[in-house]
Structure formats: C-alpha cells, structure tokens
C-alpha cells in the first residue's frame, strides 16, 4: 500500500487536538476569576494512579484538585465509539463508573478529599451520542453514578483566531458556577494552550510523530559537546531510554513525581520509538540496559514526512516477511 502522508497528519492532528482539549480543561480548572490569572498551585495529574476502596487501582486520564476538599477526574475519548459498537460504548461508562468511588491518593490530607466530580471529555461531534447512550443506561449499574458525571464536548473554531471551546452538555459539578460557565461554553485561545508546550497525554502517540519530536527537539540538545564523525557521516550521541523519557516529560509532557503522578509520555513508548530508529539504521544499541547510540545528522525535506515514509516502509517489509513466513506451502515450493 503506498504511503499516505495526509493520513499520518490527520492522526497527528487528532492527537494534538486531544492534547489541546486536555490542556484547555486544565487551564479552565486552574483559572482564578478573582485574580484573572492561572493558578499554577492547583495540582494536576495526567495518568495518576488512584486507589479505590476495594484496594484496586484506577488511572483516569486527568485528575485535578481544584480545591483542598474537591477534585475532578476526567476520561478523554476524542472519538466516542460508533453506534454499532455498543460494547465499546458501555466500556467507556464502565470505566467512568470505576472512578465513582472514594478515591485515595489525592494531594495532601492523607490522599483523601471529601468529594470529586467525574468528567467525560469527547469531541463535540460525538457528545450527543455519548449523552444519549448514558440516558439509555438508566437503571443499569454503569449508568447510575453516585457522584456528579458531566459530559463535556470540545471543538476547534478558526475564524479570525483559533480557539478550543469546551461546552458542558450534561451533568453537574460540585462548583455550580464552574458548571454554569462550562454550560455556556468556554472558548480558550490556542495561543494560550500552545504556550504550555504540551505534546503528549496519557495515550500512545503515532510513532513517526515521536520520532520527529526526538530528532528535532530532543536530540539537538544532546549534540552539544559531541563532534561529528566525518568518516561515518553522522554525530554519534549516546542516550538512554530513561534520559530521553525524562526530557520529553519535562519539556513536552507531564513529569512524574513522588505524589503519585506516573508521568507521560511513558518510557515504553519512548523505547519503542528508539527501537524503530535502530531498525531504520538511524541508531544502534549502546552498552548497558536501555542505552542507544543515535546516528544524528540533518534530514533534508519535510522531516515529518520522511519519518512517516520510513516507518511505513519498515512496516510494509515486516508485514511481507510475516506473510511469507506464515503462508501455506504450495505445490511449486519444491520446484
């Protein structure tokens, strides 16, 4: 199948839109209307692990403790499953239902708070279907919530300026003013969202996108002090999976901490990307666990397209090899 760059761009744009929606919701939760500023002391956790009363763990996409005694946990489903995938739709609410518990591991006060809201954040084009599906679950366990469950839609508008708008379509919040504001719709300038420089959320990004981020944003800072090997035609850079993960989390994601934040992007996604570079002969394994040597050099043309194409071609070769290994022998094989 020929490589289609437009399809990779669509995938990346959907991923970025979701990141924007999450950051927009974080900014709105942190907005202090009295001081007219973002309150950065409000704790946020992306991929934070909470403990339920039965001892099991749950990991909502996003957790924000807006007040000392009140919090919000949110699950982000940019694309709500289609009508025919009822099981997958049920699964979304089953997951939300797991957050309808006295969750432990909030910030401060022995990890406990009085109450929290549950939010489903989905694209505005799917929000009516999500609300309808919830209404259809009335009477069933996964459709009955003890805590507030709000369904929020997000959409991008591009008139004279680009905005992400958050709008509440169903449910309530512990803070009625906050809920009322979201019901009216809150447009947030993308310039404010992009200033946060978040490029990841708690979901696996497209691999060529990670490769591009690494090659253009992270590896250049590692080249300082390294000299180009004229014979080999590249600058060898020694990296470790942990160092790369740490830098991506610090500069473009969410950092782990000792309060329970796991951090994103996850190290396994980074390792996967580094292994792809090895398979593309753009890196090789170094000495030690998780160590790699990047064969860094400039790339001409559109670098994202280049990584997309290389990754696609690598996949095609792998699929052909798998098919060849797995196919039935034919009469002609022995000829």
């Amino acid at each position, binding site marked *: 199948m020929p490589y289609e760059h437009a399809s990779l761009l669509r995938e990346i744009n959907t991923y970025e839109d979701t990141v924007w929606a999450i950051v927009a919701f974080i900014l709105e939760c942190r907005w202090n209307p009295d001081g007219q500023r973002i309150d950065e002391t409000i704790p946020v956790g992306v991929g934070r692990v909470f403990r339920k009363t039965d001892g099991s763990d749950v990991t909502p996409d996003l957790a924000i403790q807006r007040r000392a005694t009140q919090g919000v946990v949110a699950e982000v489903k940019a694309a709500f499953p289609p009508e025919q995938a009822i099981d997958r739709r049920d699964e979304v609410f089953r997951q939300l239902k797991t957050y309808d518990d006295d969750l432990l591991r909030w910030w401060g006060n022995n990890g406990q708070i009085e109450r929290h809201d549950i939010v489903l954040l989905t694209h505005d084009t799917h929000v009516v279907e999500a609300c309808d599906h919830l209404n259809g679950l009335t009477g069933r366990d996964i459709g009955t919530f003890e805590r507030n469950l709000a369904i929020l839609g997000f959409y991008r508008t591009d008139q*004279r300026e680009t905005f992400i708008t958050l709008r509440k379509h169903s449910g309530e919040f512990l803070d009625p003013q906050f809920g009322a504001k979201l019901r009216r719709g809150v447009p947030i300038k993308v310039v404010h969202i*992009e200033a*946060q*420089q978040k490029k990841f959320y708690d979901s696996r990004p497209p691999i060529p996108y990670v490769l*591009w981020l690494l090659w253009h944003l992270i590896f250049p800072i590692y080249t300082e002090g390294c000299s180009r090997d004229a014979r080999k035609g590249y600058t060898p850079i020694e990296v470790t999976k942990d160092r790369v993960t740490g830098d991506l989390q610090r500069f473009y994601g969410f950092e782990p901490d000792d309060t329970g934040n796991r951090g994103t992007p996850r190290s396994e996604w980074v390792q996967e990307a580094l292994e792809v570079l090895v398979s593309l002969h753009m890196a090789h394994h170094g000495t030690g666990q998780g160590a790699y040597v990047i064969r860094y050099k400039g790339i001409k043309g559109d670098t*994202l397209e280049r990584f997309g194409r290389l990754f696609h071609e690598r996949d095609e070769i792998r699929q052909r090899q798998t098919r060849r290994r797995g196919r039935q022998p034919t009469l002609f094989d022995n000829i």
Partner: protein
Amino acid sequence: MKDLLKIQTQHDLLERLGRLKCASPEQIRLSVVGSGEPIDTLIAKYAPFPMRIREMADYSVGVFDYQAGQLRLNGEVYFCRAGLDKITYIISVCSGTVWERSIARLLRSLYPAVAPVFLSQKELVSLLQSAKAIFPDARLRIIGHSRKKRLKTGTRRKFESSRTRTEKPLELVFKEAEEQNFWFESISFDYRRDGRETEDPNGGLPSATISKYGTFFCTSGFDRFRYAVLQDMAQMAARKMEFFANRSRRTTEQCKARPISISFDSAAFRNIDDNRNFIGILRKMPGTSCALLHGNPYVHLFLKDGADNSGTDVWVLKDDEVLLIPQLKASEAALKRLVNYIFEEWREGQMTNPM
C-alpha cells in the same frame, strides 16, 4: 592604510578614522554585529582564510593577505567595542571587492556565533533621519538604492529587484517605495549645500550607504556618523540581541516558552492561498529543515536551523499574526535570521512578546 595598524587604543583609532578622507574605490566600511563571544577568538576557529590577529591595548585587528583565484585580497579589519553589551563594530578601510569577498564572507562564516543586525524599513528610515541631521546646513539627497519587490506567487522569479541611481529627497524615495510596494536593501546618500551648484557641489561633504543588513559605508565624516547613525545602529542591534536572547526553553523559569509575536497592520492570512504561500516560503528557507504539521485553517510548521540546530515552532493562529515559539535550542542568531526572512519574504511586521 598600514599607518592605522600602529594605533594602540580604540579611541585613537576611531579619532583617526574620523579625519580620514577616502578616495574611490576605498571607503570606511563597517558592520554592526552581535556576539556572545569575543570575535577575534571565533576567527581563530572559523575564519575561511588565513588571518593574523593582533591584540592592541583595548581592541584587536586582523590582517589578511591571500590569493583568491586570480585576485590578491589583502587588508586589515578592526574589531572595536561599540560600548554596548555583545555589540561589536567590524571596521575596514577597503574597496567594495575586498569587503564583499573577504570581510562579508568572514562574517557569514562566523554564523551563528556572530549575527548581523537586520534592520526593518522603519529603522532604516530613522537612521537616515539621524544622518540627515548631521549636517544641518546641507540637504541629504538619495543618490542610489537597491530595492526589491515580492512578485506574486506562480511566477518563476520571486523578486523584482532594481539598483537605481537617482537624485531625490529622502521622503520622496520612501513614499514612492511604499506606493509601489518595494523595500530597500541599501540606500546611498550624499549631502549638498544650496548655492554651490557650480563649484564642488558637495563642498567636501561625505557620501555614505546604509544597508538593512547592518552595514555602513562612508567616504569621510566618520566622526560625525559615529555619534549619530552608528550609535543608533548599535543601540538597535543591542535591543534586538536582548529581545532575542534567552528564548531557549532550557534557560527559562520552569522551562516555559518565550514566544515572539510578529503582528501585521492588516490581515495577512485571509484564505487558504495565503497559508499555502506562507508555507511555501518557509519551506524554501535556505539552510533550514522544515516539517509541516498543519496547513489549513491554521498553520503549524517546525523549522530547524541547519547551522546550530536551533528549533522554532511557527504558528499562524490569527489572520494578522505569526507566532514563533523557540524550542529547547534557540540561538539569537537563528531567531534573528528567521524573523528577517519572514520580514523579507512575507511582509514586515511588529515584533512583541505576546505573553
């Protein structure tokens, strides 16, 4: 100009240059540049031709003499402090050939450690205004200019450029350029005193050239230009160095982004064609690799400078603004070069810190 080599202090050197009258093709030629490191030490590492550096009391001088094809290129270049942080005057008394083929080449080879100042058209006018005030009893007259006009896309040639010899007042030249949508690369001027049309019309007054790339040439009167035009140019360079400095996210508090906004007087991105043109222009930026992440309705590109790996996210999220978000590696020189490229190839705007 070997006698200049004997001067020990920068003060004496500049005083001597102030009294100098050059005969064609020689001129006093100067470039205002910004650099975080002493330029003479950079030359030792990166000079594209042999140059001997001589340390004087409070400045340094480079002496070169080499064969370039059929041509023997030799001369001296003086590295003087402009009295402002990170700003240096690169001065030489030489012909246009030596300047272009040796000194300008030397400065290009020092990129990104050394960055020239790029002047906007407004800044160019203000420097000319300041030059006009130097000789109150004389009229400043534009005697030549090199100007460019961006042609509509779809044509093979990107610019219509012209080099013109003229004799017009400053205001008229700029008015014409604005009407015809031209911008100036360099402007040459001289001075004329009224009532001396018959004998020596210039009355010993200098002629000079200012370019938007931060160079200044004059035949004489250096002492007057030094305290007006050159001082202003150095201040502009210092302001720009400061504006572009410390944009890397590694140097900011909590690794926060320090974006640069380029805003235009009117809507510059009205439709998809405008976006497409803008993307096409940035994709062709020399010495830079580019990735397009989104083209319509908003624009998101990433540009990486090939010389020092500086990376910048370029966003068009408003119809009258380009937003640059410098990334983990972002040198002053690379940002300056990118902004100048947008000014030249797209259109000139106002630079601000948006947040």
